[in-house]
């Protein structure tokens, strides 16, 4: 099988209500990514974008952005969910041999249409929407309470996840939420949505975009001498909300297993140096540890307690701050891939983790992480 590498990337400074149109935001981030890779638009064979019609407030959200994304007279398509899905699609296109260089772009301006409202509209229109009690925050709260009571996890322990990530985000120049002196008390006294979900335990509504360039092995070697190889990919969708076992992230378990198999990773705990995961709610990160196979069911909090997942711990998770630091909905997963690639390349100024050779990046979409994508990335050295 052909090998595919990430050869360039860029992201915006994620923020609330950016003073730019989508077109400007996408144009700038694509230009920067091409500059980072050192290639011109002509050398790109295919462009895959990622955005959601409902979130952008426009049907066919990418139709006015093809010029900005550099897709004029280029093979173009659009994956309408998290950016990791677009990377997966571009990856398959290069593997198929029909294209050599792909540009992937993802964006959302959460200030356009409230993403929580969009999540409400993803519910079953025949029953759940009629009853009107559920939305993505309420469902996450239900999941959090189930998890807390099943495994004896306290609110403080969940707040500590938020504190870890927010402190990490404070050092990340692209992150949205920067609270360098946040404490557990501050998290626990922030605005309550549905018990136990509070403001600082939820990802913020960010405007942001992200782009990266993929290339086949021959082209990658010509473009850069520091490629980040995509060694494994896994993807899985779970049941609809009502039929699921909310105590575990079942689809993430399967996606991680597939990715590990493809990358030849047998023990993620010792073989992977870094994890960038998309945790839209703080308690999700604990469940993610378990689903990725880093610990047994219900023991996620122990990894956190022992400081193993801190930036300077044995298995750093989200040194960039994760989704709690910045959540431009469709771009979040793509940002995770870029952050992991940054760490591998040694370009994470100010929050670099040392000695990262293999990393995992994760993207999710849907209520309570219904869909999950896992990427295993590996550097050369």
């Amino acid at each position, binding site marked *: 099988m052909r090998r595919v590498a990430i050869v360039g990337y860029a992201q915006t400074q994620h923020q609330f209500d*950016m003073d*730019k*149109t*989508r*077109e*400007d935001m996408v*144009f700038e981030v*694509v*230009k920067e990514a091409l500059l980072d890779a050192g290639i011109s*638009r002509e050398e790109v064979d295919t462009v895959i974008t990622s955005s959601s019609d409902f979130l952008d*407030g*426009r049907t066919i959200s990418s139709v006015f952005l*093809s*010029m*900005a994304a*550099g897709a*004029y007279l280029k093979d173009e398509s659009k994956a309408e969910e998290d950016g990791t899905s677009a990377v997966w699609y571009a990856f398959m296109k290069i593997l198929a041999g029909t294209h050599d260089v792909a540009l992937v772009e993802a964006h959302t*301006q959460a*200030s*356009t*249409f*409230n993403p929580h*409202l969009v999540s409400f*509209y993803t519910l079953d*229109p*025949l029953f759940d*929407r*009629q009853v009107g009690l559920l939305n993505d925050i309420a469902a996450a709260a239900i999941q959090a309470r189930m998890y807390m009571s099943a495994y004896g996890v306290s609110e403080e322990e969940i707040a500590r996840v938020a504190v870890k990530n927010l402190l990490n985000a404070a050092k990340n120049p692209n992150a949205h939420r920067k609270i360098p002196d946040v404490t557990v008390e501050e998290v626990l006294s922030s605005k309550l949505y549905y018990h136990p979900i509070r403001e600082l335990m939820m990802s913020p509504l960010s405007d942001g975009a992200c782009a990266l360039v993929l290339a086949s092995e021959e082209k990658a070697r010509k473009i850069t001498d520091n490629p980040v190889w995509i060694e494994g990919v896994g993807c899985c969708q779970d049941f609809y909300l009502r039929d699921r076992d909310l105590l575990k992230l079942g689809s993430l378990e399967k996606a991680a297993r597939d990715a590990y198999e493809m990358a030849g990773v047998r023990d993620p705990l010792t073989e992977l140096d870094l994890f960038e995961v998309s945790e839209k709610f703080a308690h999700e990160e604990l469940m993610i540890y378990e689903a990725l196979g880093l610990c047994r069911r219900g023991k996620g909090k122990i990894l956190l307690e022992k400081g193993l997942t801190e930036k300077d711990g044995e298995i750093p998770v989200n040194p960039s701050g994760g989704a709690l630091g910045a959540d431009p909905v469709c771009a979040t997963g793509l940002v995770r891939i870029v952050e992991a690639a940054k760490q591998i390349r040694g370009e994470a100024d100010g929050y670099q983790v040392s000695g990262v050779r293999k990393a995992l990046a994760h993207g999710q979409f849907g209520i309570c992480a219904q869909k999950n994508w896992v990427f295993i990335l590996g550097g050369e050295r």
Partner: protein
Amino acid sequence: MPYIKEERPETLSVEGEWNIGATTWKANRLLEEFVKGLKQKKLIGSLCLGCGKVIVPPRNICGRCHRRMEGRVVVSDKGTITCFTYTPPAARGKYKVMGIDPVEMGVVQEGEVLVPVFVRFDGSDSNMSLPLIGVDPKEVYIGMRVRVVWAEEPKGELSDIVGVEPIK
């Protein structure tokens, strides 16, 4: 009706809604420059410094060159018709446009024939879509020379261009 019809029993229906009104779109400021020019009866277009294309009304990005269209030029208010079409005489209840009946709303007169045309103004490389005023559709042809009909008192709005009329 001559069509083959299939009868189907109707199943249960439930109501729902989708609140498009909760959307706030972001817009750029290019139209601002354009309408300022209209106030002075000038048509402003954007120029791509890479390939030299002039687009009216101004556009943000040139797709071919993948760069911003930074230049600004004034194009002539005379142009050529590149395409046109015409409607049958308007009548109440004939068709609805975005939920509005144009005759009922008084926007269009009963019996009026609408002639939208594409005009390429001298100096620009793009078409602009405008209404052609005061001409019988049978007299219109592709290649016809037209000029802008300006509003009596331009206010710096898109409606300052009332339409185009043939140059006599």
